């Protein structure tokens, strides 16, 4: 089936008007050289932020080639698996001052890793309330969410859905330090923080 699909895509580009790679390279060297010079001139100035930001996104997240600059906003497992933030919470995850947090474990996380994260959270004075969502619970919720797309549900097995800890912070201002500590733990894949009112479900996700 993949081979057939590949053929479909190949056919879709058969009207390619063509372009000379040598010319592309020359133009890129000219324009890229301009970018280099501009960047050197502006080194340190915030004006280069556009270029630097792109490179940070490119290098920071996975290819790890840009040592400076902040990593780009990570695309989250949560964004695809569970696009619904609780309606009363901030729709976009926040970097700081989150009141509610979901910690997603990698699908490869082991039992000891899960227990270690759970134990750390239970003993953490920054955590006001804590819940755990198992793979089965995640699967139920996922099925309900995508009930109108049975094909899609069919294509996903429970083992692909992440387990997660959901929690409410005692003090949102502690969120940054909190993330740093837990992001380093084995088995943790993604941490998503949101700003929620007290009435929201714990963790800020439905």
């Amino acid at each position, binding site marked *: 089936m*993949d081979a*057939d*699909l*590949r053929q*479909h*895509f190949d*056919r*879709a*580009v*058969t*009207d*390619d*008007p063509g*372009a000379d*790679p*040598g010319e*592309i*390279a*020359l*133009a*890129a*060297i*000219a*324009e*890229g*050289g*301009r*970018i*280099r*010079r501009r*960047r050197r*001139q502006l080194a340190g100035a915030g004006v280069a932020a556009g*270029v630097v930001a*792109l*490179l940070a*996104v*490119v*290098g920071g*997240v*996975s*290819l*790890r*080639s*840009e040592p400076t600059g902040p990593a*780009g906003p*990570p*695309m989250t*497992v949560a*964004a*695809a*698996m569970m696009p619904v933030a609780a309606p009363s919470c901030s729709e976009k995850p926040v970097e700081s001052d989150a009141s509610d947090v979901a910690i997603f474990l*990698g*699908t490869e996380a082991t039992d000891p890793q899960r227990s270690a994260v759970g134990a750390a959270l239970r003993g953490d004075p920054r955590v006001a309330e804590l819940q755990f969502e198992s793979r089965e619970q995640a699967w139920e919720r996922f099925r309900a969410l995508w009930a109108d797309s049975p*094909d*899609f549900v069919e*294509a*996903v097995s429970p083992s*692909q859905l992440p387990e997660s800890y959901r929690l409410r912070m005692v003090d949102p201002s502690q969120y940054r330090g909190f993330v740093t500590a837990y992001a380093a733990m084995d088995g943790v*894949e*993604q941490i998503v923080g949101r700003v929620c009112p007290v009435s929201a479900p714990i963790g800020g996700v439905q």
Partner: protein
Amino acid sequence: MTDTVTTPRPVDGGAPAGWGAGRRRTKAARDEEFTAFVESAATRLRRSAYLMCRDWHLAQDLTQQTFAKMYASWDRIRTGTNPEGYSRRVLMNLVFDQQRRRSGSEVVLADLPDRPDGAAAGTPELRLALVDALATLSVEDRAVLVLRHAEDHSVDTVATILGVSGSVVKMRTARALARLRSLLGEDFVDG
């Protein structure tokens, strides 16, 4: 305009001249290496850009921008990264940016033309239909499909390029294929 070649100011001693020659040699080597990379990667990259945006001119432009950005950081890119994967990531970021900038004013895509009955795979109708159907997907789903199925990258590679997990790639693929199938008919994927 800052582009003009400046003639090196005459300086006492041979060291600066030697240093300048060294620099020129480095640039010549860099350009040669970069050109070889562009020649190996340009066609595939431009075609992927086309599948993302449905417009050969724009695809050419995006390709050009991608390579210019890569040249600007080539010394860093060539050591320790996979330039091929890097180019995909730069391209997709450009596409995502473009989409964001345009989304306010973007004209809603015209309705898909009715699929002509009995159109054989590979007829112009189906060829256009695939590109049109791709355009109805979210840009993220389209990116996954193009990298995964037009370029034949593994799930892991696509995940690395897009900075998401493998399961996200699998889910987006499944969702996107289901959508294509519903637009183009069952035999699109099975045939």
